[in-house]
């Protein structure tokens, strides 16, 4: 009974989550005639025209480039600062550190809309609207707390004795961090990096208000602005969405083993 229920539940959740995705992927492969057919056709004829059109007519590659730059920069900066912050938070003991983590959690809970106004005015004053640094700084303010939280849970699980062994063996704290802690925390770092990357890659609202100049716009905004005054290019929208999803799937598959596997097995006892 149980062995039968579990796969069923898994399948139900999977279908529920994947159905919209599957629908637009199928749509992206349809020919223009199939796309508007009534009743709808399910099996596409693997027509690549919409992909070509999305790239050639709608400048999809430019959006991809913008998104890649913004998401990569957000990820690198968030993880670099986040790793150092999380290390300090888990290794040094002070009464206020626990509160600090709580405050950080609260900060990361702020709805974006609540801070949109101030963020816009600050960036405007800095002259950073319609510039990469502006959107990246805005993203980091949301992704950094997330990174610190994920990384500090991973650092907490690393046996401190391994680090102490490195200190006795001849490392400075910085060396121990680089040679021992970071390699061991790699699964956590990859997890945090992917989550931050996904956040920055998918983010729509800030990108919409901060990057108003079309050559700088990121994928979600770019795709959302595909529709013209009189037409909605469903096929191109579907193709662009499929392409936008690909990097995330690739990243997750690529690093899933590193994320899942606990590297620290065998370090102590066992």
């Amino acid at each position: 009974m149980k062995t039968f229920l579990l796969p069923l539940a898994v399948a139900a959740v999977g279908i529920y989550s994947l159905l919209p995705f599957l629908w637009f992927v199928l749509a992206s492969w349809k020919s223009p005639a199939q796309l508007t057919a009534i009743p709808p056709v399910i099996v596409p004829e693997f027509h690549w025209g919409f992909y070509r059109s999305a790239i050639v007519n709608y400048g999809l590659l430019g959006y991809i480039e913008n998104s890649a730059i913004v998401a990569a920069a957000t990820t690198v900066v968030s993880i670099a600062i986040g790793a150092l912050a999380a290390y300090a938070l888990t290794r040094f003991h002070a009464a206020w550190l626990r509160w600090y983590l709580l405050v950080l959690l609260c900060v990361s809970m702020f709805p974006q809309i609540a801070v949109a106004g101030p963020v816009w005015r600050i960036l405007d004053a800095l002259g950073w609207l319609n510039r990469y640094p502006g959107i990246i700084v805005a993203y980091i303010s949301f992704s950094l707390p997330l990174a610190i939280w994920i990384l500090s849970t991973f650092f907490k699980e690393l046996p401190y004795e391994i680090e102490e062994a490195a200190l006795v063996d001849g490392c400075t704290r910085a060396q121990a961090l680089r040679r021992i802690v970071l390699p061991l925390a790699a699964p956590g770092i990859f997890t945090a990096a992917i989550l931050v990357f996904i956040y920055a890659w998918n983010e729509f609202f800030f990108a919409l208000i901060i990057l108003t100049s079309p050559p700088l716009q990121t994928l979600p905004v770019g795709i959302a602005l595909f529709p013209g005054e009189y037409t909605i290019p469903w096929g191109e929208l579907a193709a662009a969405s499929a392409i936008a999803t690909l990097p995330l799937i690739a990243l997750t598959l690529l690093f899933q083993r590193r994320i899942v596997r606990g590297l620290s097995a065998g370090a102590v006892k066992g």
Partner: protein
Amino acid sequence: MASLTVQNISKSFGQAGVIKNLSFEVRDGEFCVLLGPSGCGKTTLLRIIAGLEEASGGTIVIGDRRVDTLAPRDRDLAFVFQTYALYPHLTVAENLAFTLEVRGAARAEIRRRVDETAKTLGLDGLLARKPRELSGGQRQRVAVGRAIIRHPKLFLFDEPLSNLDAALRGEMRGELARLHKRLGATILYVTHDQAEAMTLADKIIVLDRGAIQQTGAPAEIYHAPANLFVAGFVGSPRMNFAEGAVNGAGLFIGEDCRFDVSEMLPDNVKRGDTPLTIGIRPEDLTIAADGPAAIEGRVEIVEDLGSDKFVHVASAGRGWVARMAPEAPLKPGGAVRLRAADGKLHIFHSGRRIGR
């Protein structure tokens, strides 16, 4: 190699003093064991010496260099952790080489030392493995190898054998003893296992509640424990204790149980009705066939270990344990008369050893 001098080291966490003004010395090449129950502060002390924990006060000198203000890596010592603390992402060879590498040794020199260390510890075939692919005993060996490869001035061991099973522990104990002899290393070794302390140590420091209870050679600790704590902590089965009082006729426990202590006690104690604690090790109790008996009672339990029998005797509401030869003709329920072997009584007054 070098000597270690610890002077007036104190440590407190919040209000509680964990280590109280400790001073001791480990001579050059000496195998010194810090023995004590868990929570006595022995690991904290070791960590203070390594620089992993800060003392509230005091000085630490290794060789002729004061080290208590230096970072752990500048103290020129090695630390073997209870959990081994191997680097899980590095192979055995890389684990061994790590300390040399960090300190900028030449490549050829590193290789030579890794090979030499691996050979010493029988790790030759395992150099390419990761720690998770090793057994407990092999991990232990790598941890020791990581310590000896650099030839540091001082070795610190924190209960290194406590995660091994009994057979392996005995084997590693022998190996550590041989290693110490060969390297002539100065070792400070923390354990709660008295068998390790007795077999490995040149000198034992018994620690309890952050204070030194006794310092001495293993035989001295065993045969002349300085106080009730040491007497009770060292020895298995535990030493028998009983409250008694001394007067002109001898030392009495209760009404009938009399010990002749005329030659053991200083005169001032012999005269008054001084309350004393008497201690007798289980192996010092023998069957009194016909002669005078100190303890008359009934056998409650006989634990037969094959090599020995531990005989639990109840006498006038008091329990005694005697360690007998396996052929001793004692059955549960039978009457028995015991006496203490000559000169084997330990006598304590307000917790401290008195007399011979």
